[in-house]
C-alpha cells in the first residue's frame, strides 16, 4: 500500500511518496521519506521490500555522487536511469534480487528539459509524462490521463497531485499518512508544502 507518484510539467518534475512505513498491517512510522537525492537535479523515489529499498537507493545515490566527484560533472537524468536499470537488471538474475520499484525524476542540466523514468523490480524502464507505482496506478493514472498536459505549471501540477491523493484517501483501505512532495526544477530540488491533514469524505 505504498504510494509513489510522479508528474512532469513545462519546467519541472514533481515526485511524491507516501509517508507511512509499514510492516504487515502495522504503521511503524508516519514521517518516512522514501526519496533520495542523486545529484543537484535528479531525485529518486522508491518502494518495495523493507530492507532492499533503502539499501539499493543509497547504493545508487553513492555511485551517482562518486561519479560527480570524480568527473566534476553530474550524470544526466537519462544516464542515471539507464545506470539504475543496468544494476537492477543484473540483480534480477542474481541469487537474491532486489525487490524495488522506482521513479526517477529530473531536469536536464543543459537543455532544462524535465523527465520522469518509471522502473519496476524487473528492471523495465519507461520514460513517461506521469507515472505511479503499486495500487496507486489503478486509481491515479486515469485521473492523470484526463487532466495532465505537457506544459502545465508547477502550481497546476500540485493541483493535479491533490486530485490524485484525494482519490487515494477515498479508495485505499489503509491510511498512507500523507505524502512527501518534492519538485525538481532547473535550480535544484525543492521541498513542497503539502496539506496532509485534509479530510476527504468517502464516496
Amino acid at each position: 500500500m505504498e504510494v509513489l507518484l510522479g508528474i512532469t510539467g513545462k519546467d519541472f518534475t514533481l515526485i511524491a511518496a507516501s509517508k507511512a512505513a509499514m510492516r504487515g498491517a502495522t504503521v511503524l512510522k508516519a514521517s518516512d521519506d522514501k526519496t533520495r537525492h542523486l545529484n543537484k537535479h535528479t531525485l529518486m523515489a522508491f518502494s518495495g521490500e523493507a530492507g532492499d529499498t533503502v539499501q539499493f537507493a543509497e547504493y545508487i545515490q553513492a555511485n551517482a555522487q562518486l561519479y560527480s566527484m570524480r568527473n566534476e560533472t553530474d550524470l544526466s537524468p537519462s544516464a542515471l536511469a539507464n545506470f539504475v536499470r543496468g544494476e537492477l537488471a543484473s540483480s534480477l538474475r542474481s541469487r537474491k534480487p532486489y525487490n524495488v520499484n522506482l521513479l526517477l525524476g529530473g531536469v536536464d542540466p543543459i537543455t532544462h528539459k524535465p523527465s520522469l523514468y518509471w522502473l519496476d523490480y524487473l528492471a523495465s524502464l519507461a520514460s513517461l509524462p506521469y507515472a505511479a507505482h503499486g495500487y496507486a496506478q489503478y486509481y491515479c493514472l486515469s485521473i492523470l490521463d484526463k487532466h495532465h498536459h505537457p506544459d502545465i505549471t508547477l502550481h497546476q501540477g500540485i493541483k493535479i497531485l491533490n486530485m490524485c491523493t484525494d482519490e487515494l484517501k477515498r479508495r485505499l483501505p489503509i491510511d498512507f499518512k500523507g505524502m512527501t512532495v518534492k519538485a525538481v526544477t532547473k535550480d535544484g530540488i525543492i521541498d513542497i508544502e503539502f496539506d496532509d491533514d485534509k479530510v476527504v469524505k468517502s464516496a
Partner: protein
Amino acid sequence: MSSPFSINGGACVAMVGKDCVAIACDLRLGLQALTVSNNFPKVFQYGEHVFLGLTGLATDVATVSDLFRYKVNMYRLREERAIAPRTFANLVSSSLYERRFGPYFVSPVVAGLDPKTGEPFICGFDSIGCIDFAKDFIVSGTASDQLFGMCESLWEPNLPAEDLFETISQALLNAVDRDALSGWGAHVYIIEKDKVTKRLLKGRQD
C-alpha cells in the same frame, strides 16, 4: 497469463518484398492488463540495412537490445566493416544459446538486405536461439496467432515497397486490435537498397 513472455505484451512482424524488406512493431508496454506506456518501440537498427525486433519481457527487450548494440559496435571496430544481416542472425542465435538454461525471455526477429547482393533476408528465433528462416514473413509476440492469420491472407510474393508498407501495416494494425496486450500505435520500417523509410502509425488508442 503469468508467463514472462506475456507480462508486458507486444507484437512484431517482418515481411519480404521485391528487393525490399519491412519490419514493424507495436508501441505498448503493460503490466498484465494495465498499460504503463504507449511509446515503447520494439524494433532497433544495428546498421544501414540490419534491423532487430524484440518482443517478450520488457526488461529483456532492453537488456538484449543494449547487448547487441555493444556486440555490433565491437564487430564493426574489429572487422572494419558493417555487419551483414545473415551474420547478425547467427550472432543473435549463439548469444541466446549461451543462456540456454536461464534464457532471455524474448522472441527476436531479424530483417535486412545483404550488403553485397541486396538480397532480402528475414528470420525469427525462439528464446534459446533456434533460427527460423523464412521466405515470406516472420511474426512474434502476444499477437502472433492473429499476425499469422493476417499475414497468410494479405501477403503475396514480390510486393513493391509501397505495397509492402500497406500490407505489413494492415497486417499489424488489424492483428493487434484482436489482442488486449498489444497495440497503441506502431513503428513501420521499409528497407530498400538505398533508402530506409520509418513511419509512425497512430492506430487505435483503446
